[in-house]
């Protein structure tokens, strides 16, 4: 029994170093790519586990059909040592996988939360049922427009109920709520138009609270920004003269 327990303990020790195999992949500038990478690894991980257990179940259900009416099962009666080993070894294997995934998940999570120094800040306010993006200097739009290759951090709050900012293409989501400021950051790598929508139930038009994220080349972005700035100034002029 002692040798058996010894082996079980040694095996558990080996599995406990699972996290050491989880390497830092280095997605500081691009968590979305890190997401895709980890997602594929997990899909492989759970598929392997699922297939092993499924095949075992199918095999046993087929193999151990009763041959006659009075047959009874001959499942093993475990000795205390065997019972302990049958608990500790599977538990160690599961824990090794857990810690391995935890380490990977933690690394990626840090990338998700560590905002690059050169990130450009845009303030987001959510209302029932639209978004408002504030670029500073009273420049405000109802769609998000960002330059390509520029890390963007969105600082978000809500004026009424809970909302959640979700841009599937950039793999980011965070709830937006009254009384607190939350943030997400992302790095738009390709120009194009992407869906940006609300994923926290916020009432009647929850499903219509979507808009577009437009990623433009830097010069196109500057052009757009100047244009919206002029519009803003033009709109505010009459007010200024009156006051």
């Amino acid at each position, binding site marked *: 029994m002692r040798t058996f327990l010894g082996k079980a303990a040694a095996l558990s020790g080996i599995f406990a170093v699972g996290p050491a195999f989880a390497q830092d992949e280095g997605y500081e500038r691009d968590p979305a790519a890190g997401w895709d990478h980890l997602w594929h690894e997990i899909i492989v991980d759970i598929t392997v586990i699922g297939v092993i257990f499924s095949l*075992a179940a199918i095999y046993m259900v087929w193999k151990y059909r009763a041959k006659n009416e009075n047959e*009874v099962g001959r*499942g093993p009666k475990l000795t205390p040592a065997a*019972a302990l080993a049958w608990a500790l070894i599977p538990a160690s294997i599961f824990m090794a996988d857990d810690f391995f995934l935890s380490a990977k998940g933690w690394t990626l999570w840090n990338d998700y939360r560590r905002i690059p120094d050169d990130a450009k800040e845009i303030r987001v306010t959510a209302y029932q049922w639209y978004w408002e993006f504030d670029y500073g200097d009273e420049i405000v739009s109802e769609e998000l427009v960002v330059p390509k290759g520029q890390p963007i951090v969105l600082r978000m709050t809500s004026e009424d109920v809970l909302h959640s900012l979700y841009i599937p293409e950039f793999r980011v989501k*965070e709830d937006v709520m009254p009384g607190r400021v939350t943030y997400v950051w992302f790095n738009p790598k390709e120009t194009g138009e992407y869906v940006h929508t609300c994923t926290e139930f916020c009432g009647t038009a*929850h499903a219509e609270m979507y808009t577009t994220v437009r990623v433009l080349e830097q010069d196109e972005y500057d052009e757009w920004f100047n244009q919206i700035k002029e519009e803003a100034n033009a709109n505010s002029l009459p007010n200024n003269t009156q006051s």
Partner: protein
Amino acid sequence: MSMQTFKEWFFTTDHKRIGIMYLIGSMTAFVVAGMMALLIRLEQSQLGPTITDNPNEYNQWLYFHGAAMVLAFLIPGLTGFFANYFLPLMIGAQDVAFPRINAFSIWLFYGAIILALLSFVIPDPPDIMWTGYPPYSITTMGNTAYYVFTLHLLGFSSVLGAVNFLVTVIYMRAPGIGWNQLNIFTWTTVAAFVLQLVFIPVLASAVTMLLFDKYLGTNFFNPEAGGDVLLYQNLFWFYSHPAVYVIFLPAVGILFEIFTTMCKNRVFNYKACVYGGIWGIVGISGFVWVHHLYVSGMPDWLRIGQMVTTLLISVPVGLMVMSMWGTLYKAAITFNTGMLYAISCLFLVLSGGLTGIPLALTAITVHLSETSFVHAHFHFIMAMFSAFAMFGGIYYWFPKMFGRYADGKWATTGFILNIVGVHVTFVPLFIIGAQGMPRRYWDYQMFPQFEPYHQVATLGAFMVAAGMSVTILNWIICAFKGKVAPENPWKSCSLEWTHAPNCPQAGNFPNPPTVTADWSPYGYADREANLKATTDPGFPGAAKPAE
């Protein structure tokens, strides 16, 4: 039904009749909430308005479907019906410890069912999802009070039930039954009731604060007056994640009863399953609620800490899975409809459980949270694994309850429609969820590419509707007209089969059983010796395996 019969049932304190009433009530909730699911699927089957152009109506269906399925079907079905009917029989008790409190529980439950159904006829029904997050639940025109009072009634009913059953198991086991001789179902039910007793008060206080905020002008969740909207989410999920185990554990228990009997085998590594698996889950269950709040704006350290605890749930669940798979090892398997459902659960727990692993990772959930991936994941565990375990249990214990079989070609037809239907419904939702399809959407104009997937899912939902119609009609017909079953038709070793006759009368046992230390509810290896380890059942044809 004569007045006399009505009175006998309405004022009954017999745990078996109360169990049957829980079954009827929870299946009623299931049918109505299932119809809501069909409406939801129909609405999603096409872009733009399909069967309603009013999103509020759609939100009310979602609310009713979620709240009723979890709180009025799954929890009362498992801890109300199954625990009431079978737990006292399994431990050799003549009734529960407090039969009148048990009767009061069922009245409260029916009160809640009536209140929930009334929400269809009031002017502004609740539209706050089953989660009821503020500030929306406070600012909405919908009647949040209905939600709160329904939860109060159900919670009160559950807490009374929990005290009742814990006392019953502790003090009313048949003389001689030690803790390691209990059925796995008894253990899982005890664990579920411990969770109910500990965590329900938290939910009750959370929804009461909601009620005060909306109707009495308090500011628990109002940031403008120093409150915090996140407080509610923490309190809500502090109960509602353990509530998943209140459903999952008894479902696992039912499966073990079916497997051991139909495999004629002992539970593989019983103690690891009970003390590591079942109580391991109870131990961890209170430390994982933040995985529902991964994108809610919680502090980073809490999101990481509870990622690790959430992943560690795989350890106790893994131990139960090992025991379940091990019970098949060197078995002598025979098949009935209950066993078909149980075998399908082996695969449902894999697809449902393993898709929980990506969702346990905070960074991965940043993309998957609130998408139909989550929706499909918890439907695999709750709507499929747990509900299929219940349906399997109903078929398995049908001869015990009604003295008749419910098996047959209609039962098998229903099973096949159900198992195919649920996969046709939820596999497409996994796929589009991983691509970003949000849940709780009346319409999805921004994702027109997902329309075909929604149509397949809708088709699947109608297959399940057909399967469940066949199944439920089959139960009702077989309860009155089914083929008469002999005593102990599946040749089980468990007390509810060996010592209580089919359709047990009040008091349950002609001869209340006493057992010795050698007896086991899973003593198939030497059945003769196992029978000798108990007292005479006191009625013919019971304990003996039919030759």
